[in-house]
């Protein structure tokens, strides 16, 4: 990448907007995923009885739906990010690349 393009991109307000939006969403979703998972790990480590308790009186324990929920949440969170990135971020990125060529 030559210096011209670099300065053009860096001074482009759209670039700042893209970096800001994408980084923020990325960290927000990462923290959410980490919180869900490490919340689960901490419960496992310090209060395993919570997960071993019966769900509505049967053999099925609370841990089963919790486990399935974490698996589904991983998929849903990636879906949210990809949707946002493929539409909004990519459009913005496209404009930045176009601007840099001129």
């Amino acid at each position, binding site marked *: 990448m030559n210096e011209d393009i670099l300065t053009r991109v860096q001074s482009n307000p759209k670039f700042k907007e893209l970096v800001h939006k994408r980084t923020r969403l990325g960290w927000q979703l990462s923290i959410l995923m980490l919180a869900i998972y490490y919340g689960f790990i901490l419960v496992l480590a*310090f209060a395993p009885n919570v997960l071993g308790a019966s769900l509505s009186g049967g053999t099925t324990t609370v841990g089963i739906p919790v486990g399935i929920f974490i698996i589904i949440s991983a998929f849903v969170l990636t879906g949210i990010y990809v949707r946002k990135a493929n539409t909004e971020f990519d459009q913005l990125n496209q404009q930045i690349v176009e601007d840099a060529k001129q």
Partner: protein
Amino acid sequence: MKSWTKTLCATALTGLPALALAAGAFEGEVTKQATNWHAIIMFFLFVAFTMGITYWASRRTRSASDFYTAGGGITGFQNGLAIAGDYMSAASFLGISAMVFDKGYDGLIYSIGFLVGWPVILFLVAERLRNLGKFTFADVASYRLQQTPVRTFAATGTLVVVALYLIAQMVGAGKLIQLLFGMSYSSAVILVGILMVMYVTFGGMLATTWVQIIKAVILLGGASFMAFMVLATVGFSPEMMFQKAVAIHAKGAEIMAPGKADPIDSISLGLALMFGTAGLPHILMRFFTVSDAKEARKSVFYATGFIGYFYILTFIIGFGAIMLLLEQPSMMETVVKNGKEVTQLIGGSNMAAIHLANAVGGDLFLGFISAVAFATILAVVAGLALSGASAVSHDLYASVIKKGKANEADEIRVSKITTVVLGVIAILLGLLFEKQNIAFMVGLAFSIAASANFPVLFLSMFWKGLTTRGAVVGGFIGLISAVGLIVMGPAVWVDVLKHETALFPYKNPAIFSITLAFVFTWLISVLDKSKSAVEEKAKFEAQFVRSMTGIGAAGASKH
């Protein structure tokens, strides 16, 4: 089929020579023949078909880019399947269903740990990786740092992880074939090694990816059918399945709850699984096979979906095995372990999924699942071998030895020679590690990937202050501490080396080794006042712009 497998396994397990094995097979000739054909025909169909693909791929693989990354022409959906395929290894399929079969809920905990790394990889690193890298993750880590030391480190990290992962797969292959075809452990391991070398040397990444995609589709199909049949026996009521399992299992209601685990060990395992995924070289390499950042994103989305679905299936399969196998005396055998008689599933718990296939689908389906499990191993080892080979040819040979002036044909030749060498090493390690638990070996690989590769890769993209010295010292400290603590821990010091007590109390060292790696990488970088350190920091801006926008990134090659 039960009688012949029992005979064969008993023979194989007691370690009698091949002659006795042949005699055992002779006695049960009729049944043996009938079952063997299903599995062997299906397996050879897979091999023949994938060899056809390899031939097709070999005609399209000319440049280094074709060889390492299939020319960047794989779509997001295809790559998602291939990534899922790399993840749905035999160690996952057999190991996690075995863990559910043995311990119930703990198996689910383990699989969740394997999954949740994926979203984080997507949110933080997938796009940057695609925009910065070309063939290996070392391309990214060494982007603005000195090539020789950083690539030497990255290649070392890659080879250690690849070696451990290969051991797990080879051991799985040997055990499986021992049970199914009545072949000896060693001949199975040798067969896998040879096929792996053929896929990679002739077909490169294009063949490796397609073998992985085909396998992922048939494995997901087969596992879906098994889970469906298991649920059908209980009228699609999970509650009923759990009730029956609890009634049969020796541990009773304990299988529905998390087992006793040390908090530090649990957190450490969680860290290893999560960040290890983001440091596995054969997985990182897959991000360079797609055309751009958009496709890289999509691949993670599809991969997360397929992997999550697969883990739900293995959970059902594990419980199905408890429900349908434990009460069948014909599925069990008595073996002597440490001087005590133990009743276990024929071939051990790792065979739970295989026996369940027989229980729900008969001999034909057993043959199918066995062939799929074997195919899985082939596909995964091919990816591993390619990744190890590219670390040697692209990072060590082309960048370190030839200082970036290697001729492309020579580089590919070195890669192919390395693949052959890796094949031989994999066979030897497979033979050496016959008695180890395979799911656990994968855990080791993850710890090292999380402690050595991940911190350096992550900081190179996110922290301007990273310098060559910091990356190399911190990375090696992560690598050495992870390996050292595992060796001194209970898994190796007690189980393998037969000492009384472990020098290091935890099975999973990741929490310590990851921290050490990050702290030292940071510290050494901050203290580094050299001229090159200043230059490296100055280059961050250009790297950052490229990682964000993709301007200047390697594109897909046109054919």
